[in-house]
């Protein structure tokens, strides 16, 4: 058992008694201790807790009391998902000492499945950012080149899987925050359909867009994670009640005969890194080879209007969601002589630059006099983008496009140019606006050795189709390698 093992294989070997959970966790901790100094992928490292849990799990396995699809599998969870009694900072100073009194639904599900939490991962503050540089705990580094960013906002989770800390991790995706770092760090990351996975215990950023999803280095592990976390939860009123399909069966090798893959050629322009455009076309060719047919589809509004629309709607929702951080009931509080001063000082020192930008933008577009011109208009653009995807899906079963227009950039390069940073999400955020599922896969490396990602997008609730097609792509290009260690 080593840093290359998959989650499925790890659980199966522990179940068969080939190896103990303690041995797996010790190896995990060794890898983390070796690499974390360079990567800063974790905000909280649960060293002792993980060892203790593994010991207890081994005892229960020996007594025949424990089993589960993730038996003894080490996992990392983004630090915006509540963990009972364990710090949940959201990458922010304002929550630096906060220990939630309950577990998020997904954390409960991971524990029930036998997984062992080894860390809470680094992220852009309140998930606002595309590089994990907007973390109050320092930027995370890309395992393929530590001078470069991991992408974001779930950069720590992506890096943890890429560096071989863990085979699987959880992130959240509001405008690309799972898929873009998956592309930058060279792993696979999936954003499910809005409403598939409960958001109970996920710290809210933009509630109509946020969705939790898995990172892994192969499609089978993504399916395994999805099957664990995607059950109906009555505590999230937007979580659908329908039965979930068998995702593991969907991820098995099969022909793509009869599947029509839509290629968005207008997205392969000069503004997109040529090496990325090339792997999109290579992926299309590989899917054709696996039996799919190719058609051209167009998404003009998504490409042109998605970004400004998102940067009106997401900050509007954020400005409302972040009103709760007032220094009264939990989180940081600054000393003040009256309540008003307490609010101003606590929020002023507790929130970072990007969060302040978004709260203020959101407040502006929601204020009377501007509501119709910005917020309402952006809602209409969102509707238009949904309709555009609907008509594209009349021609194609699945859409193939780049995950991000660029390769992972250098740390510091875009941190003072927010608009340029936002461009990083130009192909991912329309998928959130339409509430669709998307999978980002690493399918190759650039001339400089940096990962290259492509994105598969399907109609709502078609995760099975994404996994089936993803498996064919993985069969053609291989699973995601651990950074710096062979493969591809």
């Amino acid at each position, binding site marked *: 058992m080593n840093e290359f093992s998959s989650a499925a294989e790890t659980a199966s070997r522990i179940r068969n008694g080939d190896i103990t959970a303690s041995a797996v966790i010790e190896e995990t901790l060794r890898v983390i201790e070796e690499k974390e100094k360079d990567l800063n992928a974790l905000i909280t490292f649960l060293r002792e807790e993980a060892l203790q849990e593994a010991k207890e799990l081994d005892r229960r396995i020996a007594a025949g009391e424990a089993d589960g699809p993730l038996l003894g599998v080490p996992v990392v969870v983004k630090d915006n998902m509540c963990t009972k009694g364990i710090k949940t900072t959201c990458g922010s100073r304002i929550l630096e000492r906060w220990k939630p*009194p309950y577990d998020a639904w997904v954390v409960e599900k991971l524990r029930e499945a036998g997984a062992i939490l080894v860390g809470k991962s680094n992220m852009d503050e309140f998930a606002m950012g595309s590089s994990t540089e907007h973390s109050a705990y320092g930027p995370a580094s890309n395992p393929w080149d530590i001078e470069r960013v991991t992408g974001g906002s779930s950069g720590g989770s992506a890096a943890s899987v890429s560096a071989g800390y863990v085979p699987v991790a959880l992130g959240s995706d509001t405008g690309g925050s799972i898929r873009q770092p998956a592309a930058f760090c060279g792993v696979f990351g999936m954003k499910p359909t809005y*409403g598939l996975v409960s958001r109970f215990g996920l710290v809210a950023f933009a509630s109509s867009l946020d969705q939790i999803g898995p990172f892994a280095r192969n499609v089978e592990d993504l399916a395994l994670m999805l099957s664990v976390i995607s059950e109906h939860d009555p505590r999230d009123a937007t979580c*659908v009640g329908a039965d979930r399909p068998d995702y593991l069966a969907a991820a098995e090798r099969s022909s793509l005969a009869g599947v029509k893959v839509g290629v968005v050629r207008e997205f392969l322009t000069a503004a997109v890194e040529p090496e990325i455009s090339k792997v999109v076309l290579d992926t299309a060719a590989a899917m054709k080879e696996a039996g799919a047919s190719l058609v051209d589809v167009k998404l003009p509004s998504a490409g042109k209007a998605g970004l400004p629309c998102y940067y009106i709607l997401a900050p509007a929702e954020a400005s409302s969601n972040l009103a709760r951080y007032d220094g009264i*009931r939990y989180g940081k*509080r600054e000393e003040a*002589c009256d*309540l008003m001063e307490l609010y101003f000082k606590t*929020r002023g020192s507790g929130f970072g630059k990007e969060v302040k930008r978004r709260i*203020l*933008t959101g407040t502006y577009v929601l204020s009377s006099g501007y509501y119709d011109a910005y917020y309402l208009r952006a809602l209409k653009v969102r509707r238009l983008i949904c309709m555009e995807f609907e008509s594209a899906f009349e021609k194609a079963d699945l859409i193939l496009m780049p995950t991000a227009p660029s390769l992972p950039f250098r740390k510091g390069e875009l941190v003072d140019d927010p608009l340029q940073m936002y461009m990083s999400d130009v192909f991912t955020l329309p998928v959130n606006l339409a509430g669709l599922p998307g999978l980002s896969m690493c399918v190759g490396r650039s001339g400089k050795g940096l990962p290259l990602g492509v994105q598969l997008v399907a109609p709502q609730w078609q995760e099975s189709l994404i996994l089936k097609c993803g498996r064919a792509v993985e069969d053609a290009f291989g699973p995601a390698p651990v950074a710096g260690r062979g493969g591809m």
Partner: protein
Amino acid sequence: MVSEEEVRHLARLVRLDVTEEEIPPLQKHFNEILEYFHSLGNMDLDGLDPYDPEESPSCPLRNDEVRLWGQRDAALEAAPEREGDYFKVPRIVGEVGKEDE
């Protein structure tokens, strides 16, 4: 164009201390993002209903019933300042002459 004074006003509305050095970059950012949005001015959005409900599998509603949650003390414990079973705050009425009173 959003003015510096509007940025200060917004910051007051959301109870956010913003330093004088933070104002110009915020103002610049505002104008860039709003200008970007204005570039969509020629899009035809007439007749689009943003609240048009899409067909979707249903989200079952749970019964509206009271359930006891055993973590009351843990929630109070998370408060920056607590007194008995209360969250403690500084005085609510501030000094005369402050902007928001």
